[in-house]
């Protein structure tokens, strides 16, 4: 009798073991992929393809961000020409590894993402295209956490050709 009972028991154990290994494997891939996307030198193709700002942030970093007054986003109140909108960001946060710019109503929200190696000042100025009046979001990655600043820019003439 004991032998008959022990066979299903071991089989169950093996099955359980296999199941948890599979779950671990899947979890590892899901969490590891977005985190490395922002850290290595590879061009973040997937993040640039996302339409909404939330999806683009998820594809680039894969973690939530919080608004912070330590991130200073400088953009004009009104941009006369949406094709050239000067946007810059500076931050007092330390240990910054990357800075990214998102334009929420553009066909693809992610505009630019910058890697900041150690020794480089966490401050970037650039010029972006904006399709219409919407929010510009700057995200600063500091010590592995994400901090953001948002500003609405009114666009008189859209910068997507139209």
């Amino acid at each position, binding site marked *: 009798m004991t032998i008959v009972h022990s066979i299903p028991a071991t089989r169950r154990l093996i099955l359980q073991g296999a199941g948890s290994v599979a779950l671990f494997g899947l979890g590892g891939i899901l969490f590891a992929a977005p985190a490395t996307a922002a850290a290595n030198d590879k061009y973040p193709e997937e993040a640039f393809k996302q339409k909404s700002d939330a999806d683009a942030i998820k594809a680039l970093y894969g973690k939530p961000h919080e608004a912070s007054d330590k991130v200073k986003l400088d953009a004009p109140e009104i941009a006369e020409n949406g*094709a050239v909108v000067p946007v810059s960001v500076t931050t007092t946060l330390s240990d910054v590894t990357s800075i990214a710019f998102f334009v929420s109503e553009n066909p693809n929200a992610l505009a630019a*993402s910058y890697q900041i190696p150690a020794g*480089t000042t966490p*401050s970037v*100025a650039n010029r972006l295209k*904006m399709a219409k009046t919407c929010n510009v979001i700057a995200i600063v990655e500091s010590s592995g956490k994400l901090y953001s600043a948002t500003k609405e820019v009114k666009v008189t003439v859209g910068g997507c050709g139209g």
Partner: protein
Amino acid sequence: MASTIRVRAISNGDTTEVQALVQHPMDTGLVKDAQGQTIPPHFIQQLTFEHNGKKVFLANWGPAVSKDPYVKFAFKGANKGDEIKISWVDNKGANDATTAKIQ
């Protein structure tokens, strides 16, 4: 042909401020030309700045960066007279590189 990259790097004691202007159409792939033909996307994907072989700045760009892109940043650890190397590559695989002396 003259380089597509214009760079000004100014040493300010400890930090070096770098400004770069690249000549590039940065076409989004959404705009039509006068004949109604869509202009295919053509934009710079990566712009790299190196000092003494060490990367000091890397830009990943999408088509939402303005035509003839401009970027400004600053880094520490360079001296006057040092050279920085700037290079870009676009979505069609074209590229260009130049060096600039820190002033």
